[in-house]
């Protein structure tokens, strides 16, 4: 047997079948269209570095004073 996953522990690839099951379950739970979900998740991803860099800029500004 060829291992494909040790999901969500140290960056290994997830089992495609299991991921398929989970996605199917998510589809059943969330009734939004895929484009909206992509926009929302994408926004969440982008917000993180923006927040970190904003804090960094604030620190830098204070340090220069």
């Amino acid at each position: 047997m060829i291992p494909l996953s040790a999901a969500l522990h140290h960056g290994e690839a997830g089992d495609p079948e299991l991921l398929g099951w989970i996605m199917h379950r998510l589809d059943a739970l969330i009734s939004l269209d895929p484009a909206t979900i992509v926009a929302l998740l994408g926004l969440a991803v982008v917000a993180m570095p923006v927040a970190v860099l904003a804090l960094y800029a604030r620190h830098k500004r204070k340090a220069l004073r």
Partner: protein
Amino acid sequence: MTKPAIGNGMFYGWLVVAASFFISFLTVGGRNGFGLFVIPMSDEFGWSRGAISLAASIGFLINGVSQPFMGRIYDRIGARKLILASLVVIGLSNLLLAATNHIIFLILVFGVIMSVALSGGSLNTAVAVISKWFQRKRATAVAVIAAGAPMGGLILVPLSSYLIDLFGWRTTWAVLGLMVLFLATPVAYFVMRERPQEMGLLPDGDSEPAGGGAGGRMPPSKAPLESDRWLASFRSFPMWQLSGAYFVCGFTTALISAHFVPFAIEEGYSQAMAAAAFGAMSGLNVVGVLLAGALGDRFGRKNLLALVYFMRGGGYLTLLLIPGLLGLWSFSLVAGFSWIATVPLTMALTADVYGLRNIGILSGIVFTAHQIGGAISVQLAGVLRDVTGSYDISLMLAAALLLTAGFVSLSIREKRYSIRYQPPPAAGTAPQRA
């Protein structure tokens, strides 16, 4: 002494933690979604799923084997350069994967290049640098970074899945690559700093060199087993105890991750129920790891580490002994809490015992033990399933190993070997190199 805080009173080290969290979130989380690409790529090229999964398998091994080497490079050149170089390679590799047209290309880029680069920008590198920023709150800080991986899986796997549905797998690889290049790389470039002393700060944001004791401030002396030569660590018990227990961690997590689907089918669980239980377990990872970090800083590491292994062992026993959905959900809840909780406790204890001089290579070696355990368990469980017709022996073996790992963790002499429990240095003693 300069101000110990950033603008709102927060220690700059927490900003380094936030940056490391995001890097872990994006790189590890993105990699968790590889399975989503298997079916569309297999459909387009007519490759077998086994051939595509070979890229993941090779990547699993190379990622594990390359950790100590990357750790050595970290010890020589520092985290910032290594993480930046790794992120650029990971981002470009993702872009290259969008142009995949041959299985060898996929194996080379995903299985080899990206896996080596992931080692450079990995949790180990982040843990090594964070260990310099934090002493008293080391486990908490490491736990936050470790939580980035499952958080990334929880968000990036669905994102990748919907992107593949909407735009296809090539565009999705490209989007993941662009996110690494244009979101993670700037964060690393601007925020990452090697050590607090670079900014005129002290670990944990202390405003003066500290006194001793686990409950109080950390002594600024050398860790009890710290040595100029990393090989010397193998002459002491904690290295073997930590690596051995972490081997069991890898063995037991990879076992269930790789064999969960056939196990669930064999036990007659519905797809929806199995997916819900596994999803819940992934979510509990985040809660468990954060809790372990906070408690580890408050109550010490090794007893908690033992508890985590015992808990996971108990989870495996419930899977064996309690039939049906109750067993599955009991396992998900108990094991979910413990799944990643080992990471901050093991890594923090390694740094506490062996110091910071060779932390990159030492945490890399401990991690390699984890990956070897994972690789062995996946193969062994497959063979045992073929021979015996069930997963029972594998589950029993996992439970027994976890109980052993628990006792091994308990036997670590933390009060003797951890810097947290050493008396403060006498006045006039030179401070520790951070």
